[in-house]
C-alpha cells in the first residue's frame, strides 16, 4: 500500500509516501523525518511527552495516525524558536528551572504554547496546573513549569497588547 501524504512541518511543506497506515505522527516525525525533539514516553496518550501542535492545537502525536492528517500544519519543538532566538516559553523554562532531566521538556513546552494559545487558563496558577495535567514530569519540576508558563503567558500577552496599542 502506498499512501501519499502532504504535511507542512515547521513551515516546510513535505510530500511523504507512506508504505504503512499504522505509522503515527510521532513515529513519522522521529523515525522517518529525523525530527527527534518530540519524545516517545508511554506511546499510549498518558504522559504528554509527544505533544505537538496540529493546525495550532496541542495533541498527543502518539495517538494520531499520520495518514489521517493529510494536509495538516504541524509544529514541533524544532520549529518554535526564531533563528538563534528562543521562544518565550523555552526561555521561561530555563529562567524558572522548569526541568531536570529534560525528557518531558519538549512536550511540556509545546503544551505550554498550546495552553497560552487556547487562552482558557489566565493568570490563575491552579488553572494552569489543571490545563498542564496532560504532561507528566518524573523529576517533579512542576513548580518551575507552572511559573514558566505563567511568565511566558504574561510576556506574550503584553507583547500582543503593545503591538495592538
Amino acid at each position, binding site marked *: *500500500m502506498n*499512501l501519499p501524504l502532504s504535511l507542512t512541518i515547521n513551515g516546510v511543506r513535505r510530500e511523504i509516501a507512506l508504505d*504503512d*497506515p*499504522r505509522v*503515527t505522527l510521532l513515529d513519522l516525525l522521529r523515525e522517518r523525518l529525523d525530527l527527534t525533539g518530540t519524545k516517545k514516553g508511554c*506511546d*499510549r*496518550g498518558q504522559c*504528554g511527552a509527544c*505533544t505537538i501542535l496540529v493546525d495550532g*492545537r*496541542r*495533541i*498527543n502525536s502518539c*495517538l*494520531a*495516525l499520520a*495518514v*489521517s492528517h493529510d494536509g495538516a500544519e504541524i509544529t514541533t519543538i524544532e520549529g518554535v524558536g526564531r533563528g538563534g532566538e528562543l521562544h518565550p516559553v523555552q526561555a521561561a523554562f530555563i529562567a524558572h528551572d522548569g526541568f531536570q532531566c529534560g525528557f518531558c521538556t519538549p512536550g511540556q513546552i509545546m*503544551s505550554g504554547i*498550546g*495552553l497560552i494559545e*487556547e487562552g*482558557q487558563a489566565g493568570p*490563575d496558577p*491552579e*488553572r494552569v*496546573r*489543571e*490545563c*498542564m*495535567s*496532560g*504532561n507528566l514530569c518524573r523529576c517533579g519540576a512542576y513548580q518551575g513549569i507552572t511559573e514558566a508558563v505563567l511568565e511566558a503567558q504574561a510576556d506574550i500577552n503584553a507583547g500582543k497588547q503593545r503591538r495592538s496599542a
Partner: protein
Amino acid sequence: MMNFDYVRPANVADAITAASEKGASYLASGTNLLDLMKGGVSRPSRLVDVTRLPGLDRIEHLADGSLRIGALVRNADLAHDAEFARNYPAVAEALLSGASAQLRNAATVGGNLMQRTRCAYFYDAGSACNRRWPGAGCDALKGENRLHAVLGWSEGCIATHPSDFCVPLVAFDAIVEIEGKGGRRELPLEALHRLPGDAPEHETALERGDLIVALRLPANAKNFAGHARYIKVRERTSYAFAVVSAAAALRIEDGRIHEARLALGGVAAKPWRSREAEQVLAGAAPDTTVYREAARAALAEAKPSGDNAFKIELAQRIVVRALTLAAAGTPDRIAALPGSPFSSVAGA
C-alpha cells in the same frame, strides 16, 4: 498492531458501505481506538476514517429550542463554546473534567460515546475477558476490582463505562442520531450502552455499519442551567477516570425543587440515570435530608462486585455533594479544577 486497510470515504453513505464489512471499524480521532489497537485489544482489518465527512462538525440551534451537536465536534470546542457552557454548564464541566487538554483537543463527541471500558483486564490481552472473547470468563471478578461496577453488573462482566460527558447527557435525555444501512434513526442515549447481562460483548445497541452522526439535547435541558453541576472523585485531582461521579441538575422555584435530574458515572457499564432519586427530590425543599434520601434511592439496588463496597457509600456522598453544589447555584465560571470536590469554588 495488526495491519489494516485504510479508507477515507467522501460521504456518509460510502462510509456506511465501507464499515459494513466484517472486521471494519470507524476511525475518528482515534484517541481510544489506537490505544486499543497498540495493545492488541482491538484488531480491525479496515479503518474507515470519518474525520473528513462533511457537515458533522457543527453545533446547530434547532427551531424547537434543542441543540444538535455534530459527531465530529471536538470535546474542547464544545466545552469552550461560551453559549454551550452557559446553557449546559454541567455538560461543559463534565467534558473539562475528562482526560487532558491534548486529548480533549482531539477527541470527538461521537468517539466519546463509543469509548470502551477502562477495565484493566479488558485492556490486557493476556487476561480472560468476556467482552473481548465471549465465553472466556472474567478475570476481574477475582482480581483487582475495587474500581468496578456496583450497579447493573453480571457474573459475566463487572466493567464500568468511563465517560464523564455521557453522565449529564443521560440526565438531560440526550438523543443519538444514527445513520445505518436502513437509513436514519434515533435512540435515547440511555438506550445506547447496554448492561452486560449474559452477553457483555454486545456493548451498544448499534449494528454493523451504524454511524453516530449527531447528538441532540432537548430544549428543556437549558431550564436547569442555574443549578447544574458535575462532581467527580478521582484517584488524583486531574487526568484520571472517575471512581464515582454524579451529574445533578435542579429546577428550583419558590424555594421548592420543581424538577430534578440525577445520573451517576463510574458505577455501571452505562451512564446511570436515577429516576428514583429524581422522584424523591421533585416537590421537596432543597435540603440535606432530602439529598440523603435521594442518594439512598439512587444506590438502593447497588451491590459490591468485589472489593468495592466503599463505592456504594462514596457514590451516595457524591450524590449529596453534587445536589448541594447544584442547589447553591451554578458558578459564573467553571471551577479551576472542573468536577473536583476539592476545587475552590463558593458553595463547596
